[in-house]
């Protein structure tokens, strides 16, 4: 597949070549639904069988995930065997909703974009499954863990394969649920349970965006399937409406992808076991937002304002995550901040329009590999260091964990964007794309390009800091929890092999996919082909500038964290450092802006409920009881009182009758 050959068959600037897609039947398509069904069935089995499946449950989970990968691979090969113009296949599963104006079929959409995700999710997911077999070996709930992992994978696959926003939403919610269950997997520990709740609530805020977007789409398009909605959005709705749809979709993406301003859950989500972090950050969950934006690309292209907001959000998050990453001492939280920043790159690229879609997804794939590798590496370090996560208590681990060190180094070089590692090909392209003027607006090119460039430098600094603090320098270990000496050791083969495979991907994947523009060509049926303008600076200069920024960051980190002593107690630091340590006050801001007013609102509502609603009802009962007590006094129990009452009543009756008659 040569990009030049493709362009001849593709109309320029068309977002979707064949939006309706070809009906898929026979051959691989007759069992392609298994890609979602396998992990889903496995999850259900593991949960229903309970303790009976404790002994073999984890292997069933691995098998289900691997099976999904095989099915995905077969579907990929089938699609690759066709011409680029017929690479969108719709697998109809049946009528789903038939209610009045809304008729919706449930179906899976196999196109280059969804297949890319399927392969990434199942491949990286399977590796993480294998890793978890060893990592969770001593956890008595390992089977339940694998059930949730399978559910996570199944939900993510449904999300990316869905052929309509509604089915996507089902997967979307499934991902939210699975992440909640996994982040709070050790929920007997209160802070972990709180972290899970936080992730869940932040995601619900994003979900509101998706629901609003779906409502707007249905009101204006009368349909919710991608084929109809994305074909020619501008025919159905005005630019203003499309802008609102785009912003609502962006809100949804912000929730799921931890973008500003809904980013606060990501750091706390580190409460989950480390393989979960790897899964959330590399394959499932946070990539969903980028997928949504790229998938809805046609809507965004028809709404330039929404697109600009996407780019701005991406740029803000990119810097935000990078700054936070520089100050974190918890190895997992530093990696989490790094993810936020890298997803910021992807969102920024996705907001650039067709120029950036392929690069966003490209970076997503390479990031999936090196970030998963680094998270698994971090898990391996924790495994060997008695669950220590404070990088100030690491140091000099390279000698003790050779495989972890080398694989982590591959991931580190990849995220830095050192050629020829994977990140170089994807991130560099995003920076280059950011420097391309949109609609002739050069200020945008300069602003967003510089932000992306600056981000690359900061990324180099904090990732090198993480790497050096963990693996280089002198030992700063403490004793183990039980007071004995720390004995760092390499992890078992089940843990190192996934890391090795991911490291190989971190090294070679970028080059393999970038050669001859293979990846961008492969995605063209979805993203469309576009001849982009030249960046404001020549591409060669940009590469040199990026590399210079990376080297500066690297050298700074080397001097501060590898060749000089790292203080065990964090120094006070500048105001910016202190702010970054608490995630730039994101929780304080959320508390002040949302949580506390919300609590006050609920408190006043509770008060109003007590005072007005309950007060009214209770007042009525009190009045009735009081009246009864008063009337009770009349019942003395003395016969003569009753006789007197009767007499009095008679007299009154007589008087009344006489008075009326006269």
């Amino acid at each position, binding site marked *: 597949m040569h990009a030049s050959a493709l362009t001849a068959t593709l109309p320029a600037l068309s977002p979707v070549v064949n939006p309706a897609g070809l009906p898929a039947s026979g051959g691989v398509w007759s069992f392609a639904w298994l890609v979602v069904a396998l992990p889903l069935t496995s999850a259900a089995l593991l949960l229903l069988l309970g303790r009976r499946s404790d002994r073999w449950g984890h292997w069933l989970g691995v098998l289900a995930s691997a099976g999904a990968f095989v099915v995905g691979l077969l579907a990929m090969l089938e699609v690759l065997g066709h011409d680029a113009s017929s690479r969108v296949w719709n697998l109809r599963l049946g009528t789903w909703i038939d209610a009045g104006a809304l008729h919706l079929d449930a179906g899976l959409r196999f196109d280059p974009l969804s297949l890319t995700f399927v392969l990434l999710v199942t491949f990286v997911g399977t590796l993480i499954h294998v890793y978890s077999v060893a990592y969770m070996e001593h956890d008595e709930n390992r089977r339940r863990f694998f059930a949730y992992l399978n559910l996570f994978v199944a939900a993510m696959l449904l999300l990316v394969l869905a052929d309509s926003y509604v089915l996507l939403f089902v997967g979307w919610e499934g991902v939210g649920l699975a992440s909640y269950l996994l982040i709070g997997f050790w929920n007997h520990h209160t802070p972990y349970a709180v972290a899970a709740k936080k992730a869940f609530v932040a995601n619900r805020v994003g979900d509101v965006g998706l629901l609003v977007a779906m409502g707007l789409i249905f009101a204006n398009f009368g349909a919710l399937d991608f084929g109809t909605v994305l074909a020619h959005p501008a025919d159905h709705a005005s630019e203003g409406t499309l802008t609102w749809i785009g912003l609502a979709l962006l809100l949804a993406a912000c929730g799921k992808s931890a973008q500003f301003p809904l980013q606060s859950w990501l750091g706390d989500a580190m409460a989950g076991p480390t393989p979960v972090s790897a899964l959330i950050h590399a394959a499932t969950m946070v990539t969903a937002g980028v997928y949504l934006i790229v998938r809805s690309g046609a809507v965004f292209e028809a709404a330039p304002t929404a697109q600009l907001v996407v780019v701005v959000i991406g740029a803000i998050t990119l810097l935000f995550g990078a700054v936070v990453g520089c100050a974190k001492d918890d190895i997992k939280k530093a990696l989490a901040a790094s993810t936020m920043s890298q997803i910021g790159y992807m969102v920024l690229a996705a907001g650039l329009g067709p120029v950036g879609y392929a690069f966003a997804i490209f970076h997503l794939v390479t990031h999936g590999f090196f970030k998963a590798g680094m998270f698994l590496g971090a898990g391996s370090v924790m495994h060997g260091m008695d669950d220590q996560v404070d990088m100030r208590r690491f140091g000099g681990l390279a000698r003790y964990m050779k495989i972890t060190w080398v694989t982590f180094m591959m991931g580190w070089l990849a995220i830095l964007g050192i050629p020829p590692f994977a990140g170089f090909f994807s991130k560099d392209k995003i920076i280059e794309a950011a420097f391309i003027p949109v609609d002739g607006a050069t200020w945008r090119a300069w602003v967003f390009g510089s932000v992306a460039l600056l981000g690359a430098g900061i990324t180099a600094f904090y990732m090198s800091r993480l790497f050096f603090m963990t693996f280089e320098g002198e030992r700063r270990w403490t004793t183990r929890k039980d007071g004995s000496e720390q004995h760092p050791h390499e992890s078992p083969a089940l843990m190192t092999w996934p890391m090795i495979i991911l490291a190989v991907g971190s090294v070679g994947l970028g080059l393999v996919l970038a050669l001859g523009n293979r990846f961008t060509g492969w995605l063209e049926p979805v993203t469309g082909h576009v001849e982009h303008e030249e960046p404001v600076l020549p591409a060669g200069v940009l590469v040199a500038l990026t590399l210079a920024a990376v080297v500066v960051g690297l050298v700074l980190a080397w001097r501060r964290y590898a060749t000089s002593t790292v203080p065990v107690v964090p120094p006070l630091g500048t105001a910016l450092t202190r702010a970054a340590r608490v995630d730039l006050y994101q929780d304080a801001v959320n508390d002040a802006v949302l949580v506390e007013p919300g609590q006050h609102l609920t408190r006043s509502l509770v008060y109003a409920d007590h005072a007005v609603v309950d007060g009214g009802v209770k007042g009525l009962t009190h009045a009735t009881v009081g009246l009864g007590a008063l009337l009770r006094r009349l019942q*003395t*129990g*003395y*016969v*003569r009182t009753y*006789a*007197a009452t009767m*007499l009095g009543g008679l007299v009154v009756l007589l008087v009344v009758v006489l008075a009326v008659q006269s």
Partner: protein
Amino acid sequence: MTLTHYLVLSGILFSVGASAVLLRRNAIIAFMGVELMLNATNLALVTFSRLHGDLTGQVLAFFVMVVAAAEVVVGLAIIVAIFRTRRSASIDDVNLLKS
């Protein structure tokens, strides 16, 4: 002696009977008060019968007598029964239904 005198006498008898019912505690006396009120009513009925020149009032007086006879039977039986169980004929003691 006009018919008015009969009516006045009837009123006096009724008042005496009512006072006995309202003021006396002895059940027998109160009971007699009731009888007195019934008979005062009878007197008034007969008087009005004369006054209007038809027999309706007198027929009604007979009804009252029949009811009074039945009432005496039941009432005295109740009083005797109460006296047997409570050793008292005071109607103020009969207030058990008051909570």
